[in-house]
């Protein structure tokens, strides 16, 4: 038994817990998020709280083990979650929504999640997980949260704050929208919001924006900081149960085993935007007037130039939006070869695609060539990391009306998703 425990082949679990414990529903986007974010707190409170961990996007294709299909991966992750919940003296529920990378693949009818599919679309998949979901997807998640909260009569509900991942934002948005839609789902319950790890460490600005969005919408939050250093080895053990994931790397973020952060919700947000409370706030463009006026100036343009030096993550939706914004235009799309598949795989007779070789030099040469090309309204998307470089390059095109955006969600935010 010692050898098996030491090698992590099995876990030693307390046989019984008090029946008088308070039932606490902890909602997590993916299998492992609750333990990563509040695993220490749950371990400390396991004798006073009967935790029910509900994984929203429980249908998954992601595992570090190669060769597992969606069904096998989903089942493996369910069993990991069930074991972690048992270690806490709790239960686990699969809500059954489909996680983001798999939703991306489902946009390509007839495709399957294979190494080849990932090789072709890897950049776009990476980009897609930080794009905001569309309203139809959000509506499905809200309905799922309504059903979960209606069925699971816990005395407390813990909601994720909404990390920089479409499924995390969707989960937070859906929880608040569900309670706003049916206030009875929140009546008589203690509601808490929890800080999400590793997002709090890797994207603190995003997490601050999510919390600010809640407060600006009328939420009254009381902060609780839980010191977990005394139980950090237990949290680490709980996290390690999710061995199908890449958690060795993720768990290295600073502070993850020192303090956990929870806010008790004294007042719920009163204003819930239909585009999602968190999603809408974090994708609000810093200068909306610049986008609005560029769109208005060029609405009737016959030709619009679109430069994509990075994958947008949802080109089909972006193209539809561009088609609406510019009803008479054909689109001259210059796209980096590394991400060309994303554009090539969306058939459209309004798109004239031109591939740019990979690398900065190719884009500099392209920029110089465009200086002498026929002027056209130009949209330049280079991703957040390359926005500054894109702005510098765009200064070369004096005769063109250029808009540089760090995310296509800024455009969507002005037109609605």
């Amino acid at each position: 038994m010692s050898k098996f425990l030491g090698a992590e082949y099995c876990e030693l679990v307390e046989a019984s817990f008090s029946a008088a414990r308070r039932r606490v529903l902890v909602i997590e986007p993916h299998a492992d998020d609750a333990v990563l974010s509040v695993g220490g707190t749950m371990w400390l409170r396991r004798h006073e709280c009967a935790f029910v961990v509900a994984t929203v996007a429980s249908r998954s294709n992601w595992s570090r083990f190669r060769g597992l299909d969606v069904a096998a991966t989903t089942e493996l992750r369910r069993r990991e979650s069930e074991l972690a919940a048992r270690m806490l003296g709790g239960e686990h529920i699969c809500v059954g929504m489909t996680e983001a990378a798999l939703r991306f693949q489902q946009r390509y009818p007839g495709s399957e999640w294979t190494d080849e599919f990932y090789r072709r679309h890897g950049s776009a998949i990476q980009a897609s997980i930080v794009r905001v979901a569309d309203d139809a997807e959000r509506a499905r998640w809200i309905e799922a949260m309504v059903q979960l909260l209606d069925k699971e009569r816990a005395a407390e509900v813990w909601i994720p704050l909404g990390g920089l991942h479409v499924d995390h934002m969707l989960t937070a948005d859906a929880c608040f929208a569900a309670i706003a839609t049916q206030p009875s789902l929140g009546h008589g319950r203690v509601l808490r919001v929890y800080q999400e790890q590793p997002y709090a460490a890797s994207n603190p600005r995003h997490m601050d924006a999510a919390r600010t969005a809640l407060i600006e919408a009328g939420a009254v939050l009381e902060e609780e900081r839980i010191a977990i250093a005394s139980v950090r080895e237990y949290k680490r053990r709980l996290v390690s149960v999710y061995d199908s994931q890449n958690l060795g790397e993720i768990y290295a973020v600073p502070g993850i085993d020192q303090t956990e952060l929870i806010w008790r919700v004294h007042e719920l947000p009163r204003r819930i935007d239909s585009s999602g409370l968190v999603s809408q706030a974090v994708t609000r463009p810093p200068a909306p007037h610049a986008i609005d006026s560029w769109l208005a100036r060029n609405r009737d343009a016959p030709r619009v130039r679109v430069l994509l030096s990075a994958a947008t993550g949802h080109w089909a939706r972006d193209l539809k939006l561009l088609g609406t914004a510019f009803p008479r235009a054909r689109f001259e799309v210059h796209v980096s070869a590394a991400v060309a598949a994303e554009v090539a795989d969306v058939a459209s007779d309004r798109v004239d695609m031109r591939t740019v070789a990979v690398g900065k030099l190719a884009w500099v040469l392209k920029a110089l060539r465009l200086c002498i090309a026929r002027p056209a309204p130009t949209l330049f998307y280079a991703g957040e990391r390359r926005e500054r470089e894109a702005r510098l390059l765009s200064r070369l095109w004096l005769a063109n009306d250029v808009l540089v955006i760090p995310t296509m969600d800024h455009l969507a935010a002005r037109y609605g998703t």
Partner: protein
Amino acid sequence: MRTIPALAEITTRPRHLSFRLATALPPPVAWPADSLLLPRPHYELHGDALCYPEVHQPLRQLTASESELWSLLRQPVSVAAVREWIGAVAD
């Protein structure tokens, strides 16, 4: 940020060993008899060797008593029950 690993990492690292989170929780000094032993879901027994799913390189060759213990772990089993089946060597 939590992302999908780069393709290069997926295709070049020995995937069954990469990114693993090791723990240092020591086994209990005194084994509580009524506690349950639950197996992790990642392992499959091929012959006398434990393997990760779809990775048929053995992680560990089990001894006879270890094989017996693994067989018992197919269902949640109490420490007391393991001791009863395997004897004093179980701890």
